[in-house]
């Protein structure tokens, strides 16, 4: 199977830029990243479907010259689904902005709890494992 190099470069560029944006904090940028990735995937579908050809209408040309219409139908479906996703994510970004004044993707609650644990660990000067309680002279850490 022969592959069109230009299209492959386009796919790589779209996906790379998309992944870069996806790692951002702002939900709008994440959204733009997802749009880029999805376009990259759609172009990739066209690459995977083989070479371009004549329009696949019976009688208009020799079947051997026709393009494969099935992947294009699949890409069309994927585009519609992505459109819905983008609309929904936009609404979420807007709602997040309404609620918080920004559209930053916020931390997992447990993640921040664990991070706080680690900070407490670093600040604590006692790793006393005894269950009998702390000694009188041990400093009581300010946690809560």
């Amino acid at each position, binding site marked *: 199977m022969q592959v069109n190099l230009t299209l492959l470069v386009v796919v790589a560029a779209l996906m790379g830029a998309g992944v870069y944006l996806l790692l951002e904090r702002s939900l709008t940028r994440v959204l733009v990243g997802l749009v880029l990735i999805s376009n990259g995937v759609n172009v*990739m579908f066209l690459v995977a479907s083989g070479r371009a050809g004549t329009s696949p209408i019976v009688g208009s040309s020799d079947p051997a010259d026709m393009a494969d219409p099935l*992947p294009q139908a699949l890409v069309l479906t994927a585009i519609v689904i992505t459109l819905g996703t983008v609309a*929904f994510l936009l609404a979420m970004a807007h709602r997040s902005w309404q*609620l918080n004044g920004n559209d930053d993707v916020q931390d997992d*609650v*447990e993640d921040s709890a664990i991070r706080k644990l680690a900070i*407490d*660990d670093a600040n*604590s000067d006692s790793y006393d*494992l005894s269950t009998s309680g702390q000694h009188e002279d041990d400093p009581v850490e300010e946690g809560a």
Partner: protein
Amino acid sequence: MTALVPLPVLLPLLGAGAALMLSKRPRAQRAITVGVLAAIVVIAAVLLVAADQDGPQVVWLGEWKPIGIALVADRLAALMLLVSAIVTLAVLLYSIGQGMTGDESETPVSIYHPTFMVLVAGVSNAFLAGDLFNLFVSFEMLLFSSYVLLTLGGTAARIRAGTIYVVVNVLSSMLFLVALAAVYAAVGTLNLAQIAQRVDDLPDHVALTLQLLLLVTFCIKAAVFPLSLWLPDSYPTAPAPVTAVFAGLLTKVGVYAIIRLQTLIFPGSPLTDLLLWAALLTMVIGILGAIAQSDIKRMLSFTLVSHIGYMIFGVALATKTGLSGAIFYVAHHITIQTALFLVLGLIERRAGSTALLRLGGLARFAPVLGVLFFIPAMNLAGIPPLSGFLGKVGLLQAGLAEGSWLALVLVAGGTLTSLLTLYAVAKTWALAFWRSPEQAHEMMKLLPGTGDAHTEEDAATPQLVRHRGHVHVGSVAFGERDLAEAKRVADADEPDRDLYQRVMDGSLPDRLPFSMVGPAAGLVLVSIVITFVAGPLFGFTDRAAEDLMERTPYFSSVLGEDTP
């Protein structure tokens, strides 16, 4: 009989449209949605019998025989369809009892019922899909309705949890599309049966790439470690019935897809060892997460992740008994996990919270709830003679029969996970149901920062040990989040008090409505029925597993008799 096959997808979609049009008439809307789901239960039961007696039921939509979309109801698909139909019916009845019908001020339009119908259609379509692209579309259908249900009302907590859920799932969908493009480029078709026949001619590395791409996609959906980290944070924030149906069904659709992939397309693949490792880590790390939780909802979300490991274990063994055990375990787990989350919704309504810190003495105030929680919880832990025990024994026997050292390690890991699950639910039982409310209240008052004239010296009293960011009271450890919670409860105004305070000033809500307890009790009853029919059910899953191993019934019924 084959005319029935598309109905589990078509009926809920039509029902969704009708429900949307009738959003001003809640009673008619409820009648339609309940009617549709009840009809699907009947249809799925008929399909189950038909698939068991006459082999897989196949419909080619529009008669586009080799290139179009096929819907296939074989034994496995029909069983999944029946279980999911029963569970969704129970959840719908429960949410109607809860009054989630649009007159709630949280949602502007009555969108709960239509969205729920689309979710059901997506799940049914995923079970029936005979080609990969149809599977992709059904995943999108159920994911989209899950996005809407998860962020229902658009509160800050739900938007926060929903963002991660949506982004992770959209990304996994993109990966799925990449996999589809690769599969199409490699074999020129997306029909499962045709892929399965052509994939043998591919070079090994190409086949391996395709399998890895699809496997990673499905493992994200099924929440297999290490691709499971999105789940425990997103599920608990949704409304109780929504969490119940998510926890019960959505991850199982991923497991179902993995079963199809591993048995139909890539039997005897080199990736089974990798899957076994993933199953082991899913089980053990999931249950360790569950033990660390102090909120019942989060605890159950972690046990959900953990028990996905059992099913992956059965699939990865790739033996008949292993597959049979996995299928049995999926059917059992859908029922009890949903039942547990429904009961949890009842607890939240009765006691105002699901945080262990605030609960105590529920066995005294709500004995019925106690029974309803106890049975599925023990079932989850695998106490004999309940179905969880039977499923686990089936899987462990399959592991022993396989006999490789890795399978034996997994048998040990599975046993350990089972014991730790027992520990996790027993802890929940002891704290939320068994101890007296006074005890719970006193224990909470012991915590520092609760405002009850506690000084720093009090914080060093013998009952109270601080260690690595946790506060230990007696044998229970509380993290920083619980301390903040305790402070909030202690300083709280009327509505935010703990159970003891609410009992004392008589502000505990009235008895729970039967319309909510009924469906939850019904689902618990179904889980008991599964125990009683375990013999015939295991016979059925054995036959289903045999079909999966042989593959020829699937090929010949999908592609016609002339194929090899």
